[in-house]
């Protein structure tokens, strides 16, 4: 009985795919299907709706310019509602039923870990266009977001030089926070600094009076804030109102959740963030990107690094397919293995590292002023995601389909 009901349901409703502006000439060719699983509702929607828009923008441009190898790009978009189980359901659907050639999926690391076993098991091909804690060594995945070594190896030494050697870390108590804090700890030590405090905040906590007191007690020269999620972002306002008045360094804020736009100045005053893109970047490429984006989505609140990652990922995919003359993952990985998959993105030049299938980035140091305007005291071009490769992940040779951490590296 139940089976009948379900089959009826599936048969009754039309497929929910969305064909974007395909020209008449392209219609004849079989489209290349790109699955898009992003959180358009729920907790993470703040930072992710822009990703979907960026993908739509890129697909639109590519289709107008004749598609990929003459084939139009078709997007299959599902709203994952910030719910891990939805990622599992829809990754299965997009791979098995929609038979997408590649999938762009996931904001939180948890959602990535939820769908990754399914991609592996069904032999799919997924892009994770988010900055994250690093360490995913999986041939089925390409990561276009920045990882800790890219953001911290630049940020922390610069901060220590400018402000001093005593560092306090305030981090979200989950994988991203824990691993990032570990990076910070190691880099501080290598540069002869001292960790005067480290505190992990459970997710969902929004009250920081005690932490503020702890920080004042430890008297650091600057604070590294690795707070995640909207609840934890309340720290800045609360610290400002308690007059903590210390410079802050971060890899997540501003570039992702555009807190400088949302919070009332000067709560983010003297926050330094390393990011591979934000809309304030003042280069011709970036300005052109922002203009195109705002033309298509005039109400977009902010174009963050993930939006740019997603945008460039579509073009990277195009390049790889055209060079491989195939949408098969194995063929594409052969192209990657050549080590020269690069492009001129809005942020600057980026390349895929064949060993880890992560990406090199231009890292911008964004400084938030008292009025929440941004300036860029420093730019580091071509920063490589070196850690995974150095630690022993080499996808050109072996595919362990696992996530590693500095305290849990790949087996030698």
């Amino acid at each position, binding site marked *: *009985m*139940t*089976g*009948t*009901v*379900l*089959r009826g*349901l*599936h048969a009754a*409703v039309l497929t*929910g795919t969305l064909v974007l502006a395909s020209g008449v000439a392209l219609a004849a060719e079989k489209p290349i299907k790109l699955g898009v699983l992003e959180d*358009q*509702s*729920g907790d993470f929607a703040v930072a992710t709706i822009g990703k979907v828009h960026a993908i739509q923008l890129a697909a639109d441009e590519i289709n107008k310019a004749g598609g990929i190898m003459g084939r139009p790009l078709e997007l299959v978009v*599902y*709203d994952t*509602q910030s*719910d*891990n*189980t*939805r990622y*599992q*359901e*829809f990754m*299965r*659907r997009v791979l*098995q*039923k929609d038979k997408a050639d590649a999938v762009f999926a996931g904001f*939180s*690391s*948890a959602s990535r*870990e*939820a769908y*990754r*076993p*399914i991609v592996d*098991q069904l032999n799919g091909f997924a892009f994770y266009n988010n900055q994250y804690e690093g360490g995913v060594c999986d041939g089925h995945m390409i990561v276009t977001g920045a990882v800790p070594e890219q953001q911290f190896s630049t940020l922390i030494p610069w901060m220590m030089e400018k402000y001093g050697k005593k560092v306090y870390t305030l981090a979200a*108590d*989950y*994988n991203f*926070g*824990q*691993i990032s804090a570990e990076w910070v700890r190691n880099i501080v030590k290598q540069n002869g600094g001292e960790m005067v405090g480290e505190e*992990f905040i*459970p*997710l*969902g906590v929004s009250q920081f009076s005690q932490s503020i007191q702890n920080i004042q007690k430890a008297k650091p020269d600057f604070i590294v804030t690795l707070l995640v999620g909207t609840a934890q972002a309340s720290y800045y306002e609360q610290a400002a109102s308690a007059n903590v008045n210390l410079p802050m360094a971060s890899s997540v804020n501003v570039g992702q959740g555009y807190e400088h736009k949302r919070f009332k100045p000067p709560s983010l005053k003297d926050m330094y963030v390393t990011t591979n893109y934000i809309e304030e970047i003042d280069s011709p490429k970036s300005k052109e990107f922002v203009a195109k984006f705002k033309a298509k989505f005039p109400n977009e609140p902010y174009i963050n690094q993930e939006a740019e990652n997603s945008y460039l990922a579509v073009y990277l995919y195009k390049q790889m397919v055209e060079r491989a003359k195939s949408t098969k993952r194995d063929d594409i990985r052969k192209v990657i293995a050549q080590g020269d998959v690069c492009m001129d993105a809005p942020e600057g030049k980026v390349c895929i590292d064949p060993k880890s299938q992560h990406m090199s980035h231009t890292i911008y140091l964004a400084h938030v002023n008292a009025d929440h305007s941004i300036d860029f005291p420093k730019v580091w071009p071509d920063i490589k995601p070196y850690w995974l490769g150095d630690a022993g992940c080499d996808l050109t040779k072996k595919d362990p389909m*696992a996530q590693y*951490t500095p*305290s*849990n590296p790949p087996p030698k």
Partner: protein
Amino acid sequence: MNGLISLFRRLEGPQTKGRGLLFWSVFMVALIGAIAYPMFSDGYTVGNTAYFFVWVFIALSLCLIWGYGGALSFGQTAFFGIAGYSYGILTLNFGAAYGFTLVAVLAAVAIAAVVALLLGYFMFFGRIEGVFLGIVTLAVTLMLERFMAQTAGPDWRIGAARLNGFNGMSGMPPITIPWFDGPIVLFADVGLYYLILALVVVVYLGLRILVNSSFGNVIVAIRENPERAEMLGYDIRKYQLINFVIGAGLAGLSGVLYTAWGQYITPSSMGMTSAALPLIWVAVGGRSDLTSTLVGTLVVLAGFQALTIYGSQYALVVMGLLLVLTVLIAPNGLVLGAMNVIGRLVARAKGGRN
């Protein structure tokens, strides 16, 4: 033999809707349909249906505890999560060889039941009841979620298994059955589908027998009037506790199967949303009847998924609206309401013939 017959007699009874030839014919047709349909369908649909079936157990557990026992547990997902994590920890440590995954399934369910025994002891022997029971179980579930979410640090490991905090635990093997020519690995496909279907049938029929047994009588009596039940000499706390533990075991079974299905378990599977969902399925289906709960759960799951696929950002709004309307318009649940109507029509048709 006699015992077996009297057991089967309990498949029908005052506590369950549906009896007689007509009902069981429909049941058999549905069952045969469910068995046959993977042959005409694709891997995705079968895997997706298996996924829907995974949730049936937690829904039935709530039906048993809430619908039959009258005790609203908002914490079934706690047992779901505990069992899921237990399965992960056990299989990551001991592997999948020699059918160990099957042992792990049982052990994980047992662990969930033991935790339920402790919590249930506190609650029922503390005589917590009514809406307050709901708040307590919800508070415990939310705390458990928050606790598991912060186990990201490298110290949080049990043997080879890292709890891995908010990101969740992954990499555990699927259920594996040892076989002569090599073990059968049940990925989320036809194999797993049949295993879960078999479990659904066994659990459904088993629960029918349970609620129509003398134990079920007492459970329903406690829902109707706990004081009277106690004054008939029943230690109602014990019955409530046992019922709660059985329910927790079923919720745990859902958790294990979910973990094995997606090779993944996360703290958010215990969160507010996850905790509320089973309530929704059961309330919409009809909480005081197993069949209604079973059918209702599958319908709502399929409906919600369809909504999410086709309703884009309005899906959650529509879902919320549906819930409110169901509660206002069909308080007994949509499926149970429909079944009552059908029952009346059948009775009238029979009456007309006589």
